[in-house]
């Protein structure tokens, strides 16, 4: 059992991880992440990379929707901007991948700002629909523009680093995982400064925020920019990971997926974005295991998998919202408190 930690300086009180036990756990986690690729099969590595990409994107959306309160159904579209930019740069110019990633993310951020402009006037779900409109328009553009390969999409060469060709999950892991960790850390940092507070203020009550010295448009656009920067970066990683980008790679369902991920994980907490994205990525795989396992008993299990997956996806969203609206992060918090106080209270 741990006893309440006593802090002696404001710096200690403002730290991200407030106890030595937490920091020790973090180091352990990092070590595990480093050891993982050496022990895991390509399949698990593949999943780990996919989870990381989704975490990056979900964290971005969490900043926008969970913290700033601007509901967006365009996250997948912003990812597609990043992915296409990366693919075009890689194919046409062959510039180094980190430049491509940054340019892609920057470009996505610019588009995000553009899409965010209505947010000053358009509120709530009207705004969500406006972001759908933006995705539809982007989708149209990508599937009819020769530069982006029209509806056929683009296939691109792998990323290269020091003469190494990053074309397997094992190598890509070392690109994707660190980038994602940095992105999550950046988001956590952002939130403990005036910018994070401004976001939350806008979410809770935007009109009074303005009178308190927070320029609304600037911060709403900042939020859109950061969120779509994250999406763009995630999309760029996605592009290097799959090496083909088509208009169907980032459908509207994916935007819903990210929204669902932060809701299931817990909106407005960094941990929630991470847990939610990982959880929602892994559940379909879990279902596959179940189906394979059930095949001998129930031969049509595989055929039923697609609809069952749709049902489970919906069921998870509905179930979480009704039973634990604050998501996995809240469950995690309760678990922690339980162990924290362990022998004494339940």
């Amino acid at each position: 059992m741990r006893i309440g930690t006593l802090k002696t300086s404001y710096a200690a009180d403002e730290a991200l991880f407030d106890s030595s036990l937490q920091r020790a756990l973090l180091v352990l986690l990092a070590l595990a992440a480093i050891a993982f690729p050496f022990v895991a099969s390509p399949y698990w590595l593949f999943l780990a990379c996919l989870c990381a990409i989704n975490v990056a994107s979900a964290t971005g959306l969490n900043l926008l929707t969970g913290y700033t309160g601007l509901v967006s159904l365009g996250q997948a579209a912003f990812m597609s901007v990043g992915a296409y930019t990366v693919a075009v740069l890689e194919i046409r110019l062959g510039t180094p991948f980190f430049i491509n990633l940054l340019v892609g993310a920057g470009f996505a951020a610019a588009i995000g700002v553009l899409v965010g402009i209505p947010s000053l006037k358009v509120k709530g779900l009207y705004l969500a629909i406006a972001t759908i409109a933006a995705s539809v328009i982007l989708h149209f553009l990508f599937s009819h523009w020769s530069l982006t390969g029209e509806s056929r999409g683009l296939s691109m060469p792998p990323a290269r680093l020091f003469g190494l060709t990053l074309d397997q999950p094992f190598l890509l892991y070392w690109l994707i995982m660190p980038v994602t960790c940095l992105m999550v850390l950046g988001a956590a940092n952002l939130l403990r400064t005036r910018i994070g507070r401004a976001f939350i203020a806008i979410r809770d009550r935007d009109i009074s925020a303005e009178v308190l010295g927070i320029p609304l448009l600037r911060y709403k656009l900042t939020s859109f920019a950061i969120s779509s920067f994250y999406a763009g970066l995630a999309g760029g990683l996605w592009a290097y990971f799959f090496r083909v980008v088509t208009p169907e790679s980032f459908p509207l369902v994916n935007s819903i997926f990210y929204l669902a991920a932060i809701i299931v994980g817990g909106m407005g907490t960094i941990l929630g974005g991470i847990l939610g994205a990982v959880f929602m990525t892994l559940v379909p795989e879990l279902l596959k295991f179940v189906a394979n396992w059930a095949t001998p008993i129930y031969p049509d299990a595989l055929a039923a998998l697609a609809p069952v997956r749709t049902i489970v996806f919906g069921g998870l969203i509905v179930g979480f919202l009704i039973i634990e609206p604050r998501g996995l992060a809240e469950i995690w918090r309760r678990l922690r408190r339980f162990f924290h106080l362990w022998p004494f209270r339940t």
Partner: protein
Amino acid sequence: MDALFLAEVTLAGLGAGALYALTGVAFVLIYKATRVVNLAIGEILMLGGYAFLGFAAGLGLSPWLALPLAIAAGGALGWLVERALIRPMLGESPISVFMVTIGLGSILAGVVQLGWGADPLRLPEFMLSTPVFIGEAYLAPKVAIGFVAAAVVIGLFLALFRFSRGGVALKATAADQGAAYSVGIDVPRVFSVAWILACATAAGAGVLVGAIGGISPTMGVFGLSVLVVVIIGGLDSIAGALVGGLLIGLVEALAGAFLGGEFKLVVTFALLLVLLMVRPYGLFGTHEIERL
């Protein structure tokens, strides 16, 4: 382009628009009473189509019996959804509730696919099929019937709100449930009634839409166009749904005829964006009252 073609395209557009409007009304009904943005409306519509198929083809009932049964099934679904999913969400943030409806849509699509398979199906023919000519312009008979049915239902709803207290009860409940209780409004009933009426309407629209284009588990995307309709009309305005529906139907038809089918969606959504910049609450939606 000759005038006849233009006239025919316009008629076809208005016909399609009427179905948008009808589904839009179902959407608005729920929003008006419960402030829930029901993204599952497309799937509920789809379920109406499948229910009709189930009654007519599965049980071999006459289509004229199957139709009211399908509508009733829609109503029952509405009742169930309201009870099981919406009522527990009272007081949660609008995003959460709207995500619940997304989840519901996903569940319904999955269930339909599990029950009827992923392939598109056709509804039994039950409407008259002699072509309708208005002047010289051709109008597909089903589209004409859809138009008339939609017009009648929307007219009924408009009259209901104009000449009864029902509309006030809906709006009051949506605005503040506690206060609505405190003035003697039976809030749970308002909720139930709104969902039952809306889902029954959507199911009826589903039969019409299915009769025209067949039914499939992906039919829910119809809901996306309906969303555009109600946003353009204003989320809480029945008249808005009517105008928005006809407008979108028309715009889609014209875009399809003169630009090509691939432009339909993008043109309507672009229109939506432009309109939102000018009128953030749609054509007829009420502004939120914001005071410091």
